[in-house]
């Protein structure tokens, strides 16, 4: 075993090198976020933040907190809506075998292929007549369209694995479908709930298309627009822009560190054939 590992050390070295190249832009974002204003246009740029400053992050605290708050609210709202819609649907598709399930599955699949920009234009037209433009609930609904089809597919795949005998036993004990779902199926699907919630939050947090079309210029704008306005205003404080980008990446980092097994669960549930 030890010999086998010492024979593969060079592969670890190559792996480290490749990962370093791949993650260089991420490192660079952090590096620039710590660079003082006067060194920003230095040529060649400093590869290490030796004269690092937290100026950029102070600007984030001063200017970007409302954006971050909006993103948090929108993200949590999207999670709630997505789980509430897709968990019951997954249960029905996995365990109740409704007629017409094939059609519904097909529609869910096709729904994921519609370009975001087309959805955004349709939502814009509808929200304009309903007066929902620049509203947080409107953005939550739009953002949930990014996650609901995925949620249904994950819940269906996951709930298919719950043994039928268990549901039969609940039925024998006199539980109706609703009670079976609430007290047996949902508690057993905790991992699926976590997976769907994580992705719904991440996508809503990252959304730029819906935010840019539906709430642009409104009182409550998410962090993606905060960054976009920074760039659009021809702002030259790149340390502040990159510091905002670092802060906006925190959910992604948290998910990667804390919830990696759920990512794997989400990917394998769908990508690998049973």
């Amino acid at each position, binding site marked *: 075993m030890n010999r086998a590992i010492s024979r593969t050390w060079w592969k670890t070295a190559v792996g480290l090198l490749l990962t370093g190249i791949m993650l260089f832009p991420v490192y660079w974002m952090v590096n620039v976020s710590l660079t003082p204003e006067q060194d920003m246009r230095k040529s060649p740029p400093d590869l290490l933040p030796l004269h690092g400053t937290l100026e950029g992050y102070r600007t984030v605290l001063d200017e970007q907190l409302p954006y971050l708050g909006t993103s948090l609210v929108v993200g949590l709202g999207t999670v709630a809506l997505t789980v509430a819609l897709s968990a019951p649907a997954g249960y029905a598709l996995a365990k109740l075998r409704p007629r017409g399930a094939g059609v519904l599955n097909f529609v869910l699949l096709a729904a994921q292929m519609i*370009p975001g920009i087309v959805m955004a234009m349709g939502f814009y037209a509808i929200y304009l007549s309903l007066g929902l433009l620049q509203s947080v609930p409107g953005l939550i609904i739009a953002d*949930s369209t990014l996650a609901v089809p995925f949620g249904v597919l*994950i819940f269906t795949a996951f709930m298919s694995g719950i043994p039928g005998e268990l549901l039969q036993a609940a039925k024998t004990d006199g539980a109706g479908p609703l009670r079976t779902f609430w007290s047996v199926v949902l508690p057993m699907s905790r991992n699926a709930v976590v997976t769907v919630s994580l992705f719904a939050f991440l996508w809503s947090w990252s959304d*730029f298309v819906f935010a840019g079309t539906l709430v642009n210029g409104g009182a409550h704008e998410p962090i993606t627009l905060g960054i976009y306005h920074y760039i659009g205003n021809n702002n030259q404080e790149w340390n502040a822009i990159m510091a905002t980008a670092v802060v906006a990446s925190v959910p992604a980092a948290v998910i990667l560190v804390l919830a990696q097994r759920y990512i794997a669960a989400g990917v394998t549930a769908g990508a690998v054939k049973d």
Partner: protein
Amino acid sequence: MKQTTRPPDPRPVRAPAAAPPRDSGAGTRRRPPSAQWAAWAFLAPVTLYLVLFYAYPLYRNIDLSLRHYTVRSFVQGDAPFTGIENYLTVFDDPTFAPALLHTVVFTAVCLVFQYAIGLALAVFFHQHFRLSATLRALFLVPWLLPLIVSASTWSWMLNSDSGVVNAFLNAFGIGPVNWLTSPDWSLASVIIANIWIGVPFNLVVLYSGLQSIPAGLYEAAALDGANAWQRFWRITVPLLRPVSAITLLLGLVYTLKVFDIIWIMTRGGPADSSTTFATWSYQLGFGNLLPAFGPGAAVGNLLVIAALVFGLIYVRAQRKQALS
């Protein structure tokens, strides 16, 4: 494939979840009517949701593309019906040919590189070595980052005067290259950024495909004297074909609709040199002082048709794989 290729679409890894869920097996006999009612009661919210928030926006979009809108009639909703006029306007527009070309080039080049790099990395990480699982997880980072974060980081890295890429090239006596401000390079710049974002998705899906190839096959081939290169071409490539087809098709559908990256990095410019159908549609509808909703919606619908055509091919491939 995120979007963009969400993330993409960020969105990349969610794509494979599109695999049609298998029936839970066992009995195929129909449930009694009351069970059908219960099933559809559970499905009612999502069905209503699909009608209201997918079908209706799509319908509104089609309606937009068939009427002559001005800002006033857009608000009042009394725009005259003009049939396919908006589509004809779009076809005659001098932007049409370049946008089509850029969409094709962007999609094709991104797909080829994302797939090739993803496959090479998947094969590499498949030979378990120390830290391989951790490093493979780190490769997911570009896919998890919000697209605006990736796009703005690449924008600054590719900055003509102060970007690290030109500083690096300068060390070899090359450049400076005006990545984002020269019409010759803008498309290449957004392609590079998008490949970076799409590689993790390809890596993850192809890696899971590799895991389903029985290790015994490789051992038998090695005993028969096949070298690593032959084992790759004779075993990995043929057995990975179904997974490859699905990865590429989903990649295609999701790369077609990439918008965020291009818009944030170049806004489709300079002089339309990186305009694709997705950014052109947005430009028409939202990017000008005088919005052209009708033509914008028309371009968007052309994109929907293209995505659905390849989407249908994907569904067929998926079915075939499920049957085999």
